[in-house]
């Protein structure tokens, strides 16, 4: 058994930012546990550019972006262990990890930050109909095969889901000589960022079919031979007679990302509809001293916001370790009309001058008010010309606005203008 003030699980952008911020806030005894052989997480395989516009005011590739943080981690002398997977965590904050050199080690921590990222929804999870053969693969796995190992998973591709990784992979595989036949999205709107639709599909004449999904995959030979798409109605039921058949060798899935926090399930941590933990204004979960940030809390569309959230968790954990984060209240934050979820789910301390509320809308809307209400009292109102589910919304509120609420709850909702 060893002891550390702060153990950070995951050395991607959230974990590194959390470590750097905790260190800057006076916590010296930090350990980052990273399951892969390098720091940086999924950014290592994101070799396209466009990262860092907010953080660095320039467009970097994933590896360039992460290397700036690795440099800071090294310069600050923060300890990290690679190829080290966390096997278990207990309520009294003992973290068990395993690697080749140390074997299995239990670390007793004063605080823990989960920065474990997310995983891709699998063909099984969407109950994909048809044959289960080679050539059905998630976009991120195909990206790893291509950008890390140098192998193309297919030559004629249909992509299901308009998530950003799928869009990026449509362009990437086209550049490597594959033919991407189309992207099919079950929703009536795209789930990717507009800039990715323009730069990855439109620029390469790849059609995007909305309100269409895979009716079945045919691949009795053991490899995908054909994908049949069909239109869906507003209840997501297939409409007979709308079938489109594509002869192809691969079906790439980009059908959603899910926070990867199975270790929290066992601790009976309170979970949110995002499938991440519920957190307070310090990004602390319902288990005292256990924090969460980045894609394992809720899936982000821009890495700079992951980095920011990592910093918030780093500060939150530092406050906790220093005994500053006494709970003074318990204000519940709820999603209201048109809003999928809001983070944080609770406000419990007075430590932040401004509280950033992050949320996603359920469907695209134009020209709306975002209302912050407590009971009948309107605390704050913002006008937004356009909100879409693929872009996270962030609205800052000064803590003075939260003083003297009629109810111990705030609801964030949309109202037509």
């Amino acid at each position, binding site marked *: 058994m060893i002891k550390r003030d702060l153990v950070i699980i995951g050395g991607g952008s959230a974990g590194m930012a959390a470590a750097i911020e905790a260190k800057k806030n006076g916590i010296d005894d930090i350990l980052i546990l990273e399951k892969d052989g390098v720091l940086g997480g999924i950014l290592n395989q994101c070799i396209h550019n466009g990262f860092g516009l907010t953080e660095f005011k320039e467009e970097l590739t994933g590896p360039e972006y992460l290397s700036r943080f690795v440099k800071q981690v090294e310069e600050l002398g923060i300890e990290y262990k690679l190829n080290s997977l966390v096997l278990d965590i207990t309520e009294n904050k003992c973290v068990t990890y395993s690697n080749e050199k140390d*074997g299995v080690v239990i670390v007793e921590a004063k605080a823990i930050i989960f920065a474990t990222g997310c995983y891709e929804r699998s063909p*099984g999870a969407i109950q994909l109909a048809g044959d289960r053969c080679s050539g059905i693969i998630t976009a991120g796995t195909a990206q790893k095969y291509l950008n890390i190992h140098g192998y193309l998973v297919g030559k004629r591709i249909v992509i299901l889901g308009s998530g950003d990784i799928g869009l990026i992979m449509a362009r990437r595989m086209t550049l490597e000589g594959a033919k991407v036949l189309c992207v099919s999205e079950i929703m009536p709107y795209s789930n990717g960022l507009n800039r990715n639709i323009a730069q990855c599909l439109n620029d390469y004449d790849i059609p995007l079919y909305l309100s269409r999904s895979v009716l079945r995959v045919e691949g009795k030979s053991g*490899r995908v031979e054909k994908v049949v798409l069909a239109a869906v109605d507003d209840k997501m039921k297939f409409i007979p007679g709308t079938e489109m058949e594509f002869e192809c060798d691969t079906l790439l899935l980009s059908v959603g990302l899910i926070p990867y926090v*199975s270790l929290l399930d066992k601790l009976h941590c309170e979970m949110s509809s995002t499938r991440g933990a519920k957190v307070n204004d310090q990004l602390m979960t319902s288990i005292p001293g256990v924090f969460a940030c980045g894609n394992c809390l809720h899936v982000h569309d821009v890495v700079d916001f992951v980095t920011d959230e990592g910093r918030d968790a780093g500060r939150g954990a530092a406050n906790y370790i220093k005994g500053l984060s006494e709970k003074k209240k318990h204000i519940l934050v709820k999603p209201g009309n048109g809003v999928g979820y809001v983070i944080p789910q609770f406000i419990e301390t007075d430590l932040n001058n401004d509280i950033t509320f992050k949320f996603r809308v359920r469907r695209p809307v134009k020209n709306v008010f975002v209302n912050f209400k407590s009971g009948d009292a309107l605390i704050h109102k913002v006008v937004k010309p356009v909100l879409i589910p693929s872009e996270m919304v962030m609205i800052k509120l000064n803590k003075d606005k939260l003083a003297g609420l009629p109810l111990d709850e705030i609801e964030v909702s949309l109202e037509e203008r």
Partner: protein
Amino acid sequence: MYMLDVVIIGAGVSGAFIARKLARYELNVALFERENDVGDITSNANSAIVHSGYDPVPHTLKALLNVRGNAMFDQIADELDVHFNRCGSLTVAVSDEQMAMLYDLEKRSHENGVEVRILSADEVKKMEPHISQEAKGALLAPTAGVVDPFNLVVHAVENAVDNGVELHLSEPVIDIVDKGEYFLVKTPKGEYESKVVINAAGLYSDKIASMIEDIDWHLIPRKGEYFVLDHYEVGLVNHTIFPLPSAKGKGVLVSMTSSNNYIVGPSSEPIDDVEDFATDSFTLGEIRRQATELVPDIPFNQVIRVFSGIRPTSTRHDFIIEPAKTNKRFINVAGIESPGLVSSPAIAEYVFENYVSKLFNLVEKKNFNPRIKKYHHLNEMSVEERNAAIKENPEFGTIICSCEKVSLGEIKELLDRSVPPHSVKGVKRRCRAGFGKCQGGFCSPMVTLILAKHYGVSPLDITWDRKPILEEEVKKI
């Protein structure tokens, strides 16, 4: 070419246990499998229930061999190092009419020699907090269990091979010629002479049987589709939960598995094409509807996989275990649908006692070992045991599958055994790498590279199941 004593066609669970049984004796036995792995088709895709035997019609082979097989499972699980849990089954009645049927089933159970007990609604609800409020009572069969169906077959074949059986993978039997004293068994790779042939070819057993004579039975295969849920928490159900059986079979069950996942299914639809393993949303929706009648709050957002399996149901509706009409040295083991998995060790005994033992003057091998060499199961070890294992082989410390926490050492250990995996699916079936919530999204590239390195081939040659995962190597800059 030397004369084989016995050729077994099909390395599914029946062929596997027959091979293991014959491996005890001084016989030259060869086991032929058309797929690239053992237990790859029907044995790979079923409910994995070690049925108690309450349900088969008394005095059928199904009834006899189910009960006999069930009793053998503790020893088998121990000798073959296979996960097995006698969790018991509950057949739940949700109406007074069904309650009356339970008493009939109780009678049938006693006739089959199966220990059962009728539980009141209160007792059921206490044992199974998530059961439907409509439950009126249940038939508890404590001897029922769940088993790891993948390693059951792999380890049985491994044990057979370790004791001298030849295994021929990816070698379908395409013709058999009765030469009087022996059979000529033809595959795309060669011709083999054998005194005895045992046809355990599952979905193809009618075709194999027809190679030597006209048969008076045929297969009417039935597809069953399933959901698999992640092991997100313990206690959704603590037993295998069955509805009342019907003409179509034992119905849609909800069960925990030997790996603490949950399984929901199967459907039961006759099909024409034994290669049609596709799932469809209509059938899955129907399974979901039926399952939630028994267990209303199944969390379907925890589904990690859907799959289908095909049962080799025969027109006789019982196991067909008998010699060909024209040649007593050709033994059919056909129509092995449910309860085939649990019956398989007893099927092997039956085939041996009634047929094979009468064809040879048998001598037991002096050095037969019924046990396989233990595998390292790191997740079942204490921290101290784990550290001892890692000290011996540091690769046990490197975790490749983060969902199921499978180490590099455990994957490589598979490759050094006598029935090693050749595909990513083969690795998954044996050690659970890729079996978790991300379904191999993270670990499958690593598994592909490990296999390529071990077999000294390009990653382009590594298959998921039958066909490669990768299409092309990109140009290096």
